[in-house]
């Protein structure tokens, strides 16, 4: 019982990144990225990302390069957009 309560608590406070983002919002947010590059970088033959986890990590790294920083929710939205339209990782 106690274990179940812990599990429920853990789920309730899981970070936002585990929630599925909103790709439509992500597309809007992504306009900030288009200042510097097009979407070609996402589909380049020599691209380095090979998994959804990798994509999330890379997005988080870039999110901290901005002012203001992208929030966890916004990162989830960006990842959802990038994965839906470009990376298509399962």
């Amino acid at each position, binding site marked *: 019982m106690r274990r179940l309560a812990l599990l429920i608590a853990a789920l309730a406070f899981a970070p936002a990144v585990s929630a599925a983002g909103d790709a439509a919002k992500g597309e809007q947010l992504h306009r900030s990225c288009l200042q510097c590059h097009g979407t070609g970088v996402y589909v380049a033959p020599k691209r380095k990302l090979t998994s959804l986890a990798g994509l999330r990590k890379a997005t988080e790294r870039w999110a901290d390069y901005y002012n*203001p920083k992208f929030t966890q929710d916004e990162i989830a939205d960006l990842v959802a957009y990038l994965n839906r339209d470009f990376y298509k990782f399962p």
Partner: protein
Amino acid sequence: MRAAALALSLACASAVAQDADRGRLLYETQCGSCHYERVHQRPRERAKVKSLDQLRDEVYLRAGQTGRPFTREDLSDLVAYLDRSYYGFAVRPQGGHELIYGAELMTSQEREQYRRELSAAGAGGEAKVRAQHRQRMRARAKQRGVQLEDPAGTVRR
């Protein structure tokens, strides 16, 4: 001078709109005979130019005063160069998030510090904070033997 400008115009005619590097070349060859570049470094409260539209107007006006032919593309490149280097009106993109110049060369703490400096400087002082920051990052890039892409300030790969 005119021939140089023309050659430059022709050579770059197919370039995309708003090429700040090309604007820089034009600026350095066409603008320096009347004023030093430091006219763009006035503190913002004393600056005559307070918006991208005003910057555009001013560039068009001054270009006319030279009596030399500038194409529309020349003028928009000049505006892009000046905005990138000094004014920073266009750096806040539509998405509302601005890429920090040289962010990859900074620690997470330094970026946080820079965000605080920008917000403390307010609208009046932001340009100065940005300009100083860009200078610091360019020096740091040189020290580390990397090159920064302008205007974004990402590391060239």
